[in-house]
């Protein structure tokens, strides 16, 4: 587990993609990620702009994905991220059962969740990815 201090360290300067269709939540996440020193890509409420962003941006450190976006699933975004080797985290009101089948092994947050949990999970994700990609 990564503690709060180290999580904030890990998150500094990271570029985080946020996909979330609920404005209030997206805004909240945006706010706290910026406060944590991250650069926020998005937030995107729909799949098309998110995919566009993934295709355009050269560096994405991690992604925070809502599962349901205005009635569509976030699966295409997750697949695109996976193909780019970007770690991601699901945040959903439906709980773990709502996660698309191919990515059941990925971390899942149940909305709403405490903000520090969100940051910690995100840091964990980055740390793990760092452990694999940049030893």
């Amino acid at each position, binding site marked *: 587990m990564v503690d709060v201090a180290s999580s904030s360290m890990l998150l500094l300067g990271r570029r985080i993609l946020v996909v979330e*269709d*609920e*404005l*209030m*939540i*997206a*805004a*909240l996440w945006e*706010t*706290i990620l910026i406060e944590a020193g991250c650069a926020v890509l998005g937030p995107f*409420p*729909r799949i098309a702009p998110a995919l566009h962003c993934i295709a355009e941006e050269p560096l994405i450190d991690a992604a925070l994905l809502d599962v*349901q976006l*205005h009635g569509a699933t976030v699966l295409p975004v997750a697949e695109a991220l996976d193909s780019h080797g970007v770690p991601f985290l699901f945040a*959903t*009101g*439906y*709980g773990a*059962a*709502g996660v698309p089948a191919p990515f059941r092994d990925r971390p899942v947050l*149940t*909305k*709403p969740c405490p903000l520090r949990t969100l940051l910690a999970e995100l840091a964990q994700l980055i740390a793990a990815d760092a452990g694999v990609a940049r030893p």
Partner: protein
Amino acid sequence: VADSSQHRPFHVVGIGASAGGIEALKPFFGALQPDGGQAFVVVTHLPPDRESYLVPILGQMTPIPVVAAEDGVEVEPNRVYVLPREGILTIADGRLRLRKPDPAHRERHPIDVFLTSLARACSEYAVGIILSGGGSDGTLGIKAIKEHGGLTLAQGRDHTEPRHASMPASAIATGLVDMVLPVQEMPSRLLAYIRGFEALDGKIAERKQEGGVADARAAICRILRNQVGHDFSGYKDKTFLRRVQRRMQVLQIGDLERYVERLRQDPDEPRLLFRDLLISVTNFLRDKEAFEELERRVIPSLLAGKGADDTVRVWVPGCATGEEAYSIAILVREGLDRLQGMPKVQIFATDIDEPALAVARTARYPAGLLEGISPERLKRFFTTDGSSCAVTKEIRDLCVFSAHSVIRDPPFSRIDLVSCRNLLIYLDSELQDKVIPIFHYALRPGGYLFLGTSENFTRHAHLFTPISKKHRIFRRQDHAGGLQGLFPLVTAPTQGRPGYDGAAALPDQRRPVLHAPRPGGLPLRQIAERRVLERFAPAYVVVDREGEVIHYSARTGTYLEAAEGAPNRQLLALARKGLRLELRIALREAVVTRRPVRRDGLTTDFDDRHQRLSISIEPLPERDGAELFLVVFQDSGPSTAREEIAVPAGEAVNRDEAVQHLESEARELRDRMQSTVEEYETALEELKSANEEMVSVNEELQSTNEELETSKEEQQSINEELNTANFDLKAKIEELDRANADLKNLFESTQIATVFLDRHLVIRSFTPAVTAIFNLIPTDRGRPLTDVANQLENVDLRADISRVLDTREAIERRVRGTGAASAHYLMRILPYRGTDNAVDGVLVTFVDVTQIVEGEQHQALLVAELNHRVRNMLGAVIGLVAQSAAREPDVRAFADRLLDRLHALARTYGMISRDNWTPVPLRELVEAELTPYADGDDRRITIEGSPVLLAPKAALAFGMALHELATNAARHGALGSADGRVSVAWSFNGAKGGQRLALHWREAGGPAVEEPRRSGFGTDMLRRLLTYELDGEAKIDFAREGVRAELSAPIDGELVRVPDRMVAAPGDAGAHG
């Protein structure tokens, strides 16, 4: 009941029925009036361990309550009691008694048992009815009822002929059934009888003084005295009149006077009434004194001096059901105890009534008929089982029952005792005249005649001498006195034939009683007469019809000589030559004609002398049935020497030759005749012995016949039971058929697919609904279910079923069908338990639960959606709080703004949830946000636009946006000042397919607007909301004269849509904008 003191007595009707009885009972109860006031008790033959269905069957036929008879139940009028199961039903003291049958000794005559108890309990108020049935049950019961003064009915052979007639026929044959009727008529005749019964009671009471009834009674008595010679004036009024009334009822005569008239005119009626009045059924040792007299005075002499080789023969003509015969058998058996040797005893009990004989042969009687018997006798001669008593074999074997008519058939003979206590009253005087001599004939000399107390004979008084006048015991008159008078001299000692007793060798004890006279005791005249007779009377002998000499007179030597060979008393053998043939012919003639015969001009040779003589034979008066003849030899002229005779004076010599020739010819013929006669005699002897043999063979046959009768009786009663059992089974089968049909219908109609399998998974049966799962056709019964393809996903039926068979526990789980409908089923596999509770198969059922499963899935979906929404909402609130907090330094202001926003959110939610998350009209949304600021002034706020529907998500977004605009206007813009106005108008623009909704917000009349230095949270949210949530756009222009804003969103048909008719005419919509 009848003897109950506090109630008015009422009639109890006992109905006996057996095979075919239900068909007879139904019309009977169908014709019954509901308030007749009688109680009915129905007794039938029931097989063991089986409930009767009669209660419901009869219950349907009559409004009278029909109940099962129970032990101890008080009998009430207007009620029908039915014997519900095999048992012994009796009645006593107004209550029914029901006992369990003794399984070791089945009661084969429950009807007799009940009717007998009914007769005792209710006497005159008893009514016995015998309906269709086999066998002879009820016959003894009818006798008992009749004897106690009750009424008896039997089902008649009519158009409603009983199906099995032998039971009623047996009752009718006793002659004791008052009315023989078709069943339908029984209730009305019964009622008429009872009404008459009650009326008579009244009449006796009321008319006693007037003397009307007394007059009628006296008239009847007079007629009876004249016609049948019996005086009934001493009889009790009530008893007498009851019987008269019963006759009236039978004849359907309502009036005493008219009945008296009938008595006068109908020659048969007095006799029938007489019989009714005298009904005294011969019970065991009934009429105690008479039997005691018989026991004391007759039985000992019957048995006296009898040894093992002797036979005692008793004849009971008109024995009916055998009580009288068995009574006498008991007395004789007890008499035998006192003897050394055991003579053979034969009691011939005869009657013309075969059914009654069948009862007699069975030798079983209801206990009620044995009242008169002492306990010692009961113990010794009867075996009691349950309610009936059987005569022991010891007694039974003494009696031989056979069908025989006293009048038509040849009588028995050599009988020691004739007991006829119950027959003569049934015969008219002409027949009685015939019968008494028959008895006389049948009895051996000195035999006894025992008659019923009310019977007598006057015309033949000379045939019998009374021994007990009171008890009607008589002894056969042997005419001994007459014979004695004829032969006083014969055995006088002076005759020089000492010790001779002519009767000594007579067969059959038919010996005339010849008493030797006591010499010196005779009067002078007799002595003189005897002397004259000895000296002057011709020689004579007395012979019987066979020619055996019974008595010789003196001086017979001239005519008779001792024959050679063994001593012989045959007259024809003793007669001297020349007399033999004439004697034979003359004797034969005398026997046949029974008139005196005389032969003259005979000659005989005697010591070289010729004697001419005449013979006369005359019959003596009959005595003891033995015919005797007096043969008198009379000489005609003195005897002559042979020569003198050879040449009679005056006879021509030339005639001698002819005479000699004729004589030799005659001699030859006589010899020939003699030999013929001897042959005839031999043949006669042979015939006699053949006859003897025939008689004994006949007796053997009779006893065999009897055994057959007995076994036939048993067969009949078994048959009876089978018939009843068969009826019960039929009813049961019908019930089963019904139940089966019900089940079949249930099967056909049920939607629950069910398959019945045996241990080896072979299909026993299935319901039609199964065909949705298994492709079964009716011929698949008998095939293993595993051979049939099923439409189930992942179901191993074989494994499941064998588990159920092993564990005997049911399995229940859900399975899916593979068919197009992909139905869901609840599959249950249950052990099939047979009648003995053993598992011999399984029951597989499938309940279609597709709808339930779909419902559950839908529900799960709803719950998940709700969870999602709640979490989203909470996330939104958290975001809202966090954002607001970041921008409002003042807590108070923060709280106000936050609450405002939350209220707005809640309002919009209220609208959305009001109609179950259905789209909300835009106008309502706008009105909800702005109306609070109108302050009652219509002009402050104007709203324009054609109908648009917003899905919940869009409604929330527009709601929030409008709220931010409104609060902003209230704080800084037009709604903050008294003159400010806000107009909201929306329109559609863009081409079809890419149409957009554009809402314009215009403020006017407020204070001057300044561009805020930094965009506030509200403005930020406003701008991002529509983009984010609806892919729309929000523009705000802080113009000086008033804030202007444009909110736009695509009309995608889902989040934002125009009601159908508006989309069709976008031009109209534009006109509104």
